[in-house]
């Protein structure tokens, strides 16, 4: 009798429970059309999974019936999907599993999960997928072609220059001013200050700055001017020391080289600025050179230099800092002029040849710009005239230039 009572109570509670369970706690419908394929352009460690959303995963649903998807995988031959590989959120229809092993055969299982944790029926990929390694990243084909063209042009013009052909290079006022600046410092009996930016030696701007330092140090050695180089990176300090020492040696003044004039201050941006500007105000150098990568400190340094009446030459490839240098310095090397400095200053034919190679790159860039503008304008005009097959062709060409040649969608559309 008591057992019958208990059974009845349980049945009643179960019946009642079915009414008080909230609607969103229902088991969601599973996603559909689950497919897996090798992830393209990788080293064979990725598989791309795609699916259609669970019918309960609706974009404007509140509260949500599906909060995420859970993806598990197993190797062919294994019984259970034991390895969880990811949990993409609702409304996602793809997932990249980048932790696969090359050549192994994987199956995937995906379930939709409700906010209360209830899971849909699993959906499993029908056939095994293998991660394959690609030999070449096809997204970068056009980048490679342009790089080869520009690199080839640089090498070609270097060889042309080495054969003795005369190459005309326009005068760059900022670089011509180096002699004047160092000469002025010598006459005034004051020092020259060279700042090679605040980034480390792995940045190309720092390397460019160091090559310019080589020339400035040569001039300082020749004129017997004192050259100070405060650095914000230890590696830059050691590189700068080697470079300056070589320049003094080249100028026949190895005895005039003072290692302690090239010193490390701090890696911290504003700590470095405080140290350099403090030394500028105290020592009042007659010539200041800012050559490298700069950020917010550019104007603080250049304005301090201006306030102490130093002749200032700056060079950087940071477009946002260029206006500050232009406003506060006597001469500014803008972008490519800065990178051309070492070739220009050396005057060696094989170095000057590289500048001609750069010009070839500009021709390629300008050509692409002109063709792109021409086709885009023609497409817009054709669209205004009513649109036709020609409009479609023109738009396809513009998209090809944008997405394939300048983008990452591969060699062909």
């Amino acid at each position, binding site marked *: 009798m008591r057992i019958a009572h208990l059974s009845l109570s349980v049945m009643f509670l179960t019946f009642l429970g079915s009414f008080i369970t909230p609607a969103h706690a229902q088991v969601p419908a599973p996603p559909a059309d689950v497919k897996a394929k090798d992830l393209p352009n990788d080293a064979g460690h990725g598989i791309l999974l795609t699916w259609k959303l669970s019918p309960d995963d609706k974009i404007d649903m509140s509260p949500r019936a599906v909060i995420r998807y859970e993806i598990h995988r197993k190797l062919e031959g294994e019984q259970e999907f034991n390895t969880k590989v990811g949990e993409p959120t609702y409304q996602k229809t793809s997932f990249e599993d980048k932790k696969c092993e090359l050549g192994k055969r994987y199956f995937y299982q995906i379930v939709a999960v409700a906010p209360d944790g209830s899971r849909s029926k699993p959906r499993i990929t029908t056939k095994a997928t293998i991660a394959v390694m690609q030999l070449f990243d096809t997204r970068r084909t056009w980048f490679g072609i342009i790089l080869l063209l520009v690199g080839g042009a640089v090498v070609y013009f270097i060889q042309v220059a080495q054969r003795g052909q005369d190459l005309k290079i326009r005068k760059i006022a900022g670089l011509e001013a180096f002699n004047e600046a160092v000469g002025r410092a010598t006459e005034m009996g004051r020092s020259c200050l060279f700042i090679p930016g605040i980034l480390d030696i792995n940045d190309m701007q720092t390397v460019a700055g160091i090559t310019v330092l080589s020339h400035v140090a040569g001039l300082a050695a020749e004129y017997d001017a004192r050259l100070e180089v405060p650095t914000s990176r*230890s590696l830059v300090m050691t590189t700068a020391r080697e470079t300056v020492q070589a320049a003094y040696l080249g100028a026949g003044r190895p005895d005039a080289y003072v290692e302690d004039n090239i010193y490390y201050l701090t890696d911290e941006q504003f700590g470095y600025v405080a140290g350099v500007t403090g030394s500028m105000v105290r020592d009042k150098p007659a010539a200041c050179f800012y050559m490298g990568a700069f950020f917010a400190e550019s104007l603080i340094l250049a304005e301090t230099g201006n306030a102490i009446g130093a002749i200032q030459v700056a060079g950087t490839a940071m477009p946002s800092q260029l206006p500050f240098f232009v406003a506060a310095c006597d001469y500014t090397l803008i972008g490519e002029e800065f990178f051309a400095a070492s070739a220009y200053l050396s005057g060696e034919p094989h170095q000057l040849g590289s500048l001609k190679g750069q010009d070839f790159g500009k021709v390629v860039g300008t050509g692409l710009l002109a063709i792109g503008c021409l086709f885009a304008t023609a497409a817009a005009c054709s669209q205004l005239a009513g649109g036709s097959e020609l409009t479609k062709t023109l738009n396809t060409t513009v998209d090809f230039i944008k997405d394939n040649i300048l983008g990452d969608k591969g060699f062909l559309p």
Partner: protein
Amino acid sequence: MKRTVPLIIAATVGFVVIISWFIPYAQSWGQNVMIWFDILAAIAIVLGGGNLVKMHLRKVSDRRSGWGYSLITLLAFFTTLAIGLSKFGVNPSELYPDYVWSGNHLQEGGGFWWIYQYLYLPLASTMFALLAFFIASAAFRAFRAKNVEAIILLGTAFFVLFGKTYAGVIVSKAPLEWISTTLGWQTDALEMFRLDRFQETIMDTFNAWGNRAIMIGIALGVASLSLKVLLGVDRSYLGSQE
């Protein structure tokens, strides 16, 4: 030899990084090379720190001008180093509560954190704040209307600066509404002359054109200089042969 070996290392590493960009198999090589550099730079900080201490100790011992600043630098350097290394004020981590030194030296409330939060940050902010005054003094010189180019620059700067403030929006709204009602033109047609929109046009069109031209030049310059360094055409950064 002193220049040849570094040149070979630089060229090899440079070409490895380029290859890793195009060949998926070599992607990890490029990442490894970057990690090597980080390790090298981390070790090199000893050189920098050593040089800093040597320079300032010499300045203090020689009683050269400004030796007081050097003394403060040395005190700050060694105090921060000691507090950072000893993990002063840092609680043990939850994982290893029995080990006094198991906490992170950057832990909130710790001595190192305190120095950063209450000494370094205010000092750095003070230096950064100087920028406002320097911008004003540089702008004063740059915008002096001494020739046609400077007048154009001044005008453009005026529109951009004024357009970025609420005053620019309010001031340009009233005349445009007056023109619209007087001449019967649609307000939409005059929208582009509102100062906030006009400055956007200047920034997104003219400024973007100039910037992109500079960026293309920079990209080509970087490619060319990289190639010269990798091929050993430019060796000035490598120092002396002797």
